[in-house]
């Protein structure tokens, strides 16, 4: 198991991208919540993607925390997308009754970026859309390394 003190948050074209590729401890989750809200405020982010492709287990606390982060960000006016959930983790969550009805989701980080891109295009800001179309978003940041 890999442990890290903090989960890195990437600032990109007005958006924040968080790709969680480690086993989440409670400390990490709490730290992440603080870091994301601080980053949103400092950076004035308009979009947030939380990529879960590296997570192979979510219990009620972790899933509740991720959902909380998404809802907090949403309250702060940030479009939030959760992406890349492992199919088996998703099945487990549903069986546990831990759906995330109120959170926007995407199959992959790429889809999540496109989703934000479409949102931004609607608001007449094409920077992210250009980024997507330029091919930079083409799998390079895809968390599905395994």
């Amino acid at each position: 198991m890999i442990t890290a003190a903090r989960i890195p948050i990437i600032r990109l074209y007005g958006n924040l991208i968080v790709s969680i590729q480690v086993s989440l401890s409670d400390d990490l989750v709490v730290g992440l919540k603080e870091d994301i809200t601080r980053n949103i405020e400092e950076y004035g982010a308009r979009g947030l993607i939380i990529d879960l492709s590296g997570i192979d287990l979510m219990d009620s606390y972790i899933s509740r925390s991720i959902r909380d982060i998404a809802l907090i960000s949403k309250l702060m006016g940030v479009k939030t997308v959760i992406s890349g959930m492992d199919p088996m983790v998703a099945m487990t969550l549903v069986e546990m009754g831990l759906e995330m009805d109120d959170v926007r989701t995407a199959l992959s980080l790429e889809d999540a970026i496109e989703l934000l891109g479409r949102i931004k295009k609607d608001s007449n800001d094409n920077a992210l859309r250009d980024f997507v179309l330029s091919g930079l978003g083409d799998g390079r940041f895809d968390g599905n390394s395994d």
Partner: protein
Amino acid sequence: MRDVSTIETRLKAVLNQFLSPIIADTVYASRVSASGINLRNLRIGDRQRLLLSLQKGIGRYLREEQAKQCLVQLEAAMHFSSVSATPIPAYDEQAIPIRSEVDIVVARSAGRQMCQTLGFSSLLQIKMATAISELARNIVQYAGEGQISLTASEEDGRSYLEVVAVDQGPGISNLDDVLSGTYQSRTGMGKGLTGTRNMVDTFDIQSGPGSGTRVVIRKWV
């Protein structure tokens, strides 16, 4: 009693028969030792996985015809050992003290490992690890400390994993509410116990004010 060294010796002997000693050793080390397959408890799925892996290993060094012969003998070596020996249950037991959040991760990792050894599917591994995580979290959150015991064993030829979570905490006074799903906790979604119950084959809980809590769950392979 199934002798691991016998299976090992047999596989190595076959490899040595077809490959030079150094290459045979390399193939064995990279394919068998690194596979994580428990030779003590070779299941049908394990055999196939091991064979497939060995096939890839020897495919590099042998011509097709030779590789085929080698595989046939490797398979025979595996089957012979498991048929001739009296099967013993893959009995394993671990007790993990739960005192802090870190122990939650320890418990669920250990549980997952045991599920893997027992031959649970990936989905079942995740489910059981999640269930263990919930039980361990309840201990940390409500009782402060306790213990999770994991037992892998067999009954009537079927393997199972049993998890016992015990604490001497305040107990659950509104157990009926919690189990009926009407209770909403602040940290989870009130779904920890009901969710766990949904994912396992047997679920038993004893709890009351002042008498601590004891949860026993079991999942069959």
